[in-house]
């Protein structure tokens, strides 16, 4: 289900039956080799989107709204002319500061998300990735940790 943050719930309720009524007979995706299905995590609407803010709050939905675009729903990354690194079973995540700083500042072609995500959101999604996709790191990051790294980074 596509969910939005609306000031007017009326619009949202008008919009759900349309989705259910829609048939999509002609477009296909190949059945084989597809990453597991992952439900959409919703959209930021209006001013929130215009300011570049994401509305998803918890780690799983933040991952599904942002990270899986490149790192894929199964976090195994992808390869074409270049590649996107796998986040699954990734020893580079051992130090939580590494993914936190990568999110805040970006890395090479990857854009920065420091202005689009709050300290809470960064902590949520980093904790989610470090405890899912064959990652089993016991320590977790707090919003205060993120704030400290944010303040210390250029």
């Amino acid at each position, binding site marked *: 289900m*596509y969910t939005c943050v609306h000031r007017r719930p009326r619009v949202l309720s008008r919009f759900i039956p349309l989705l259910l009524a829609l048939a999509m007979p002609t*477009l296909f995706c190949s059945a084989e080799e597809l990453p597991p299905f992952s439900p959409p*995590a919703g*959209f930021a609407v209006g001013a929130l989107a215009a300011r570049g803010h994401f509305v998803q709050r918890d780690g799983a939905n933040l991952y599904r*709204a942002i990270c899986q*675009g*490149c790192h894929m*729903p199964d976090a195994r990354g992808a390869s074409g002319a270049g590649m996107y690194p796998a986040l699954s079973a990734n020893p580079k995540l051992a130090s939580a500061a590494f993914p936190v700083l990568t999110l805040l500042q970006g890395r090479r072609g990857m*854009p920065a998300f420091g202005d*689009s995500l709050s300290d809470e959101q960064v902590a949520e999604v980093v904790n989610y990735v470090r405890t899912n996709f064959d990652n089993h790191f016991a320590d977790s990051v707090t919003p205060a940790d993120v704030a400290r790294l944010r303040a210390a980074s250029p």
Partner: protein
Amino acid sequence: MAEHASDTSISRRELLRRIGQSAGAAMLYQSMSALGFAGESTYHGPVELAGAPRGASVLVLGAGMAGLVAALELQRAGYKVTVLEYNQRAGGRAWTLRGGDEYTELGGFRQRCEFDKGLYFNPGPWRIPYHHHAMLDYASRFKVPLEPFTQVNFNAYVHSHSAFGGKPQRFRHIHADFHGHVAELLGKAVNRGHLDSEVSTQDKEKLLEALRTFGFLDKEHRYRKSEFASATRGFDQDPGGGLASRAEYSEPLALGELVQSGLWQSLRPSFAYDLAPALFQPVGGMDRIPMAIYREVAPHVQFDAKVVGIDQDDRGVTVTHVDARRGGAPRTDRADWCVCTIPLSILSQIPVKVGAAMSAAIQSVPYESSVKIGLQFKRRFWEQDERIYGGISYTDLPIGMIGYPMDRQNTHGKGVLLGSYTWGTNAYEFTALTPEQRVRAAVEFGAQIHPQYPAEFENGVAVAWHRVPFSNGCFAKWSDTVREKHYENLCQIDGRIVLAGEHASRLPAWQEGAVLSALDAIGRLHQRAVAAHVEPA
């Protein structure tokens, strides 16, 4: 040549040619400005690089607009050119999808475009402003027919889910009412003497007159339901013929609601230099331009070549590549020089033997997110029901906008809309969906603007640029600080390697940037090649 022209009737073009020959490029440019020719673009007409050193060779990496232009012009100058391209087609991001095309994005999500014959969708660039002289010149030189691209359509919609009860408003209403109300307010301020310290008595009268004209105000300087306001925003009932001919004036939107709606934001494109009329599109799809250039260099283009290493020494450049589809043993090509147009999002992952400054620049530029979705409908309801012929409707829903086809207008039959074009937050959210989910979401959101969507929709394709296997993103997202630090280092010739592409331009995302960057790069490379040849060891 103007053999038949006397000195007094010499053509401007011939005069410029003579000035150019005798006084050099700087003088030529000055003269062009004086004659009203230049001032906008740094493009000064077809590049002339005659006199390549005998046997000199160049490897061009990438067959998008930058690579094709570099290969074409270097070949014309006498260089032996080899082009390596990852895709199985030329054009790069200047790309068109048509019925029958298949496209597999990163992650293995495959789409087949089901559009009817003759219908198409440009997932990348789709418009060429009049001041993009280089693009227009290449289209003209290669006889690629262009047609007008309507950016601003006064009868298209502007829409906010939270304004006017979610009901789309006509652009002309927002445009007219915003100008009208502002003109009336300013007129009041002038009349009441609030601006006396800023405006002289002499200017005051002229200004009031101008505001009346500008805002379509009535004789009392009011913007209200009247023949004046209806002359700009339109009528409730248009004037007609015969007995059923009386016009009904329309009621302007209230100032408060208009300002609160935020819809004035959608007026911006009508004032922006990049989007001001006239704009153009190639008839039949944006890839018509790269395809025309490709035909000139085709024998020297190798597809399916995935570059995995770029090495150089003081005598030449060696590029290692593998078959992008079948893999297998790496192969190498070697040439005296290299023009590399691989996007930095990809190049930053490839070992490239260049100095620290260029290397740091290559590693420093993030790539913007963007999504475009093409939707085919059974009938052109936006024309038939709503009288929207071309142009764009803007919305604050996650689809961002709806673009209407510029071709086949006022005909029966099907049509393809641009169902979404977004950047930033919403582009990430769309990218994270499967292609099928993206199309479904675009139909669903679009139905809030055009209720005909669900009944008329047939099929769609969705291109999310961060999932595009050959670019890992849409375009180089330079910040001012990164540009300040790295841009010049990125554009320098490093030994025998020079970079080109929209990322090596100050017109990011535009094809014009890619072409101007390529022309600048090969001009400097040619100078260096000629100089290197003059002083043999």
